Each structure stands twice: as structure tokens, then as C-alpha cells.
């Protein structure tokens, strides 16, 4: 294949990866920014989102479009509910202590993974894409659904940005992130904000998973890669910085796509990890970070 189309394919693949990664990493970044919690179970929420999406689509048995839309609504809500529960029952009882919550979310990761294994089983199961459309370019074909994923991800991110900067809830979240004690003094229900943010972060991961499940398949171990990449993105972008997270997701996603197409996927991961190490050395706060990592 000539360089031009080859590069186009690499960019498309990278853009799809970046779109999903941005959503997932955004959730992780929000939780860290507002709550100062490193949520290791984030990948498990991602996986749970995909599995619930499969379950909804399978139970409903309606047409691909209807099943998918139902999954897109039900799955993030269900994952959000699990996250709220986890926040109430675990994180709050640990007083959001940074070290304890890392250990607790590791535990949560295992619990969710094992429950998925015991109920959903070890198989990879597909959800049918809502649109069956193949874009035939002169050099290769491309799944129309993948292009839809990019669009959907942009829409969701714009909505998050709008919500954070233009709404009252967004203001409360930003206030809590800035200084939770002062926020409390101004009668912001910090506890409820925490619960909401944790759930919202998990829901973003779930949305990313529902979008990706017609491309990949729901599998109980599928959360590991997104978790690793999300951490890389959040560290590069600057812990807690949404702008940095999105930018880093695009950089990592695109470079991952392009490097793995032209060279090898392993090299792409090696380079991403190397970039993280360099950033930690040169700019410990990340590209846009406001507090040290």
C-alpha cells in the first residue's frame, strides 16, 4: 500500500483509539482532580460497561440500532450505580485517604473482574454495530461505525466541557477541586459532589466501553489496556487537568495508531511508556498540571 493511504488508515485507526481513550481517561482524570483518588478500578468499570452493554443487547433482542441505544443509556447508568455504591461503602469509609483508596480500588478491580468472570463467563461476546455501513475508499474499506465512534466521543466530550464550565454542578465540582475545605465553607455538599464525580467518572468509562464493544467484544479482561493507557494519558496531560487529558489522549491515541501501523504495536506501547517517564522527569506536573504528581 502506498504511503498516502497507509498513513490515512493509520490516522483513522489512531483517531478511533484516541476517541475512546479520551473518554476513559477523562473519567479517570475527573476523579483524580476532584477527589484526589487514584482509581485503579477504572478499567474494571470500563469492562463492566461493555459487559452490561452486551447483556442489554442480548436480553432485548431488538434490532441492532435499538439494542445499541438502549445499551448506551442503561449501561452507563448501571455502572454509575455500582460506582456510587463503591464510593459510599468503601471510599467514604476510608476518608478518601490517597494510599488506602489505591489499595481499596485494586481490591475493587479484582472483585468486579471475578464477578464478571463468574457470571458473564470467560468468553468474548460481540454486540452488533448499530449501523452496518462500510466506507469503501479507493485503497481499502473502513467501518462506518468506527467513524461514528469518533463523532460520538467528540459530542460527549463537548457535553462534559459544557457541563463543567457552564452549569451550577460544574461550578461546584470545580470549586471542590480547587479547595474542598473552602468549598465546604461555602455550603457546597462536598460529600455528594464526591459521590457524583466518582459515578460520573465511571460512567464516562462505560460510555467509552459501549462505543467500543461493537468493534471489539465484551470480555472480562478487556479493562486492562484502557486502564494502563488512561494512566499514561492522565500523567502526560497533567493530573486533574481536563484540557491536558484530552490533548494527551489525542497524542497518545494517534501516535499509538500510527506507530503500530508502521512499526509494531509493542513499540507503540514502549514509546508511550517512555514518554511518560520523560515527562515525569522533565515536567513532573504534566503538560497542563497544576499540582505535582
Amino acid at each position, binding site marked *: *500500500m502506498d504511503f498516502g493511504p497507509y498513513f490515512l488508515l493509520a490516522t483513522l485507526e489512531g483517531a478511533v483509539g484516541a476517541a475512546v481513550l479520551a473518554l476513559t481517561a477523562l473519567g479517570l482524570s475527573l476523579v483524580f482532580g476532584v477527589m484526589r483518588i487514584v482509581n485503579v478500578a477504572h478499567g474494571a468499570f470500563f469492562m463492566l460497561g461493555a459487559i452490561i452493554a452486551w447483556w442489554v443487547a442480548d436480553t432485548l433482542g431488538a434490532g*441492532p440500532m435499538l439494542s445499541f441505544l438502549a445499551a448506551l443509556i442503561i449501561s452507563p447508568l448501571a455502572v454509575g450505580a455500582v460506582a456510587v455504591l463503591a464510593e459510599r461503602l468503601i471510599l467514604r469509609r476510608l476518608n478518601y485517604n490517597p494510599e488506602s483508596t489505591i489499595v481499596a480500588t485494586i481490591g475493587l478491580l479484582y472483585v468486579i473482574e471475578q464477578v464478571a468472570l463468574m457470571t458473564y*463467563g470467560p468468553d468474548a461476546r460481540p454486540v452488533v454495530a448499530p449501523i452496518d455501513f462500510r466506507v469503501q475508499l479507493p485503497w481499502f*474499506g473502513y467501518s462506518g461505525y468506527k467513524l461514528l465512534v469518533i463523532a460520538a466521543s467528540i459530542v460527549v466530550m463537548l457535553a462534559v466541557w459544557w457541563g463543567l464550565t457552564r452549569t451550577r454542578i460544574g461550578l461546584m465540582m470545580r470549586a471542590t477541586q480547587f479547595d474542598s475545605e473552602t468549598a465546604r465553607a461555602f455550603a457546597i455538599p462536598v460529600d455528594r459532589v464526591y459521590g457524583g464525580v466518582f459515578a460520573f467518572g465511571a460512567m464516562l468509562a462505560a460510555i467509552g466501553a459501549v462505543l467500543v464493544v461493537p468493534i471489539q*467484544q465484551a470480555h472480562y479482561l478487556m479493562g486492562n489496556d484502557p486502564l494502563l493507557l488512561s494512566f499514561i494519558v492522565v500523567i502526560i496531560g497533567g493530573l486533574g487537568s481536563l484540557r491536558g487529558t484530552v490533548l494527551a489522549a489525542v497524542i497518545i491515541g494517534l501516535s499509538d495508531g500510527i506507530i503500530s*501501523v508502521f512499526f509494531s504495536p509493542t513499540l507503540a506501547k514502549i514509546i508511550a511508556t517512555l514518554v511518560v517517564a520523560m515527562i515525569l522527569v522533565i515536567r513532573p506536573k504534566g503538560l497542563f498540571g497544576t499540582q505535582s504528581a
Partner: protein
Amino acid sequence: MVESVRPKRKQPVSGVTRRKALVGLGGAAVSGVLPGFVRYAQAQSSAPIKIGFQVHRTGIGASYGRWYDRTTKAAALLINESGGINGRPVEIIAEDDGTDPKRGAEVVEKFATQHGADVAFGTLFSHVVIGSAPRAGELKIPYFVVSEGHHVASGMLNRYTLQPGITDVKSQVQSMAPWVAANLGKKVTMIYPDFAFGHDHRDYFSAAMAAQGGEVIGKIAIPPTESSFFKYFPKIPRGTDVLYHVMVGPGVLTFVKEMGEFFGSKRPEIFGFIDSLEAVNINSPGLEFLEGSYFWEGNPRYAQAQSTKFDAFYRAKVGVDATGASVNDPKDISTYAHMFGCWETLHVIKQGMESAGYRGPGDRAKLIEAVESITDMAASQAHPQGAKLFNGKTHQVFGHQYISQVGGGKLNVVHRTAIEDGFYKDEVDYTSQPL
């Protein structure tokens, strides 16, 4: 499925009451006082033969594991119904190895030291076999693998590791290559998983094609845990006549689907190993482009007009319908091309133990020698996939292979190779190693 996780509320923390605990303690005390009473009364005559079953319940081999498990249980049940081995019942002790080599070695050790298993059996994924076999050799526990890898016959392993129930990749691809070169084309691009099993495909198919005057012009290795495959397809060189694919792991359906998206209707000839679609319905949405393409099958998933009565018997016993799906759930597709290996291997263990007069772990060396002396295996209920020939020196069995074409939503067998097509020169003589 997810709704069934709801925890039950009102149960006590543990189901043990004080009374039950006291009764249990008393019982334990009594049996301690009378050690010979229950446990040894019939030990020599009817204590079960313990077969440690190393199974991929979790990890990337899980869908194979599920069917290897069902096949093994069905075979054990059949053996027990017909009188067991040397009059003793067979007990299958299953342990999950997580499709992980390190865990695999631990599981083998557990069989030998903790469970007191007579033999270990059942591993599929080649990296797990390669990781576990050295430990089996050290512990001198016979280790019967169902893996397809060439590592047994290549001499890489040891005298305690045998593969009597399934053919190896070298023999499979060698018997495929003439047909591929004659019917599909001479310029082949291979896509294979980047670990031992895939490397066997790469090395031996390339050599076999070269022997046919063909050429492998592209070799694309994909990590077995990969979840997105589109990026690999542009590496397929122009001028490829035949795309040869073999893939494993949870992403196989994605792999084949993305291949369809990439090519559309302008595809080259496609020859795949059914591994790329084991446990997957070939009528899944997005796989329409496979119509007319070809697959290697170790054992035909769809019952054929020419299928034997042995295949029908085996299908019924394992619980697989004529389309290769579970009789209980048409969505649950079996790993039909591979799992017969468990059934046949258990029958080989039975045959070996009976001819060795096997009584216990002290006779393990005799068992190895007895299995090494097996040669012909006729098509039968014990060997439903077909006749086989076992090579005692290389510890590897040889048999027929099938090539099927996708047509009308089924896999239809178009060619069956002869056993001799898979022969190659011995690379090891395990019988010269000490026991």
C-alpha cells in the same frame, strides 16, 4: 446474566451451626481412630485413578477450556460406565491454569504433590505446555498434552510429555500446503499469533510451501492478547494470492470481521485455520465475506454426509448438535476441531494403563513405555476423529486433516488428507532418555 449476581441477604455468614460442627468433629475423631476402616478397605481394587486436568478456565484460552472440560467429563463418564480403567473408576481433578505458563507449572506440581494424581493431562496452549512440561519431567509425572504444538515432536520437551490425541502443527500445515498451492495460489501471506504455536505455523508452512514451489511473501505476527487488528492488514503485500490466517484468543471474531471490512468484496483467496473462529458462529454478522473461503479443521464442526457413526456417537455423548453447537444452547459453539483430542487422549491413557497393568504412581514409567509401544489406532468410539498412527519415539500422533469450504452458512468438507501426508523425519528419540 448479570442480574443473577444479586447477593442473597438473609443467610448467616457461614452455613455451619454449632451442632453440625460438633458432629463433624466427632466424625473426624472416629475416622482418626479407625484409619483403615473406610479409606483403605478397597484401595487396591477400586480407589479411583486420578487424572489431573490442567484446564484453561480463564485467560485467553477460556473458550477452549470450557469445551475441553465438557469433552473430558463426557469421556471420563463413558470410561467409567464401561468399567473404568483396570476396573477402577477415573476421577478427573480439574485445576485452572489461567492459560498462563507459570501457573501451569504450579498446577502440574499441585497434581503430583498435593492431589496425588496418577497423570496430568489436557493442556492446549503451547506456551503453557512449554512452561509446564519441564516440571512434569522433574516430578516424573506423565503429562499428556492436547496442544497441537510441534514442541513435543521437536524434542524440546522430555520423556514424560506425550501428545497421543491430536496432531501437531508441523504435520497439519505440511499436509495442507500441497492442496493450498494446487488449488488457491502460490504466493501466500501469513497472519499468525506471535508465540510458539504461531511460530510453528510460520516456520513449517513456509518450508512446506517452498517444497511445493510456492512462496510466503508476507509474515505478519500479532500478539495473542491483541484486541484491534485493522492496523495489521495494510502490511499484506500486494500480489498476495492467498491469505493464510490463524488466530487465537478472545479477539478472534474481531480479527475476522475487521479482515472483512478491510477487503470487502475484493479479497484474495483466504485459507484459515479454524482456530481463528473456534467457538464462534461462522454466521455471525460481518463474516459474510468468508463465503467460499477455506478452513483447516482438525475435526469437521458440521456433521457431514460422510461422517462416521463414531463421530455421531461422540457428538451425542459430548452434547454437540449437527452444527457444532451445544445441544443446550445453540449460541454456545464448540471448539470441535480440537476438543476431540481430550476424548482420544483419555482413551489412550486407558489403553496404556491397561496394557501396563498400572496400579499406582510407582508404575508411571511402565505407563510411559506402554504408551510408547502403541502404534495404530483404528477409527472407533475411542478415536472418533479417525484412524491415527502414534510414533513412540517422538511421542506424537499422526492423523487425517480436513479442509472445509464455507458455503450456505456451513463448513463443508472438500478434502481429507491421508495420514502419510503429515509424516516427517523423526527429530528426537525420547525412548533413549532415562525414565
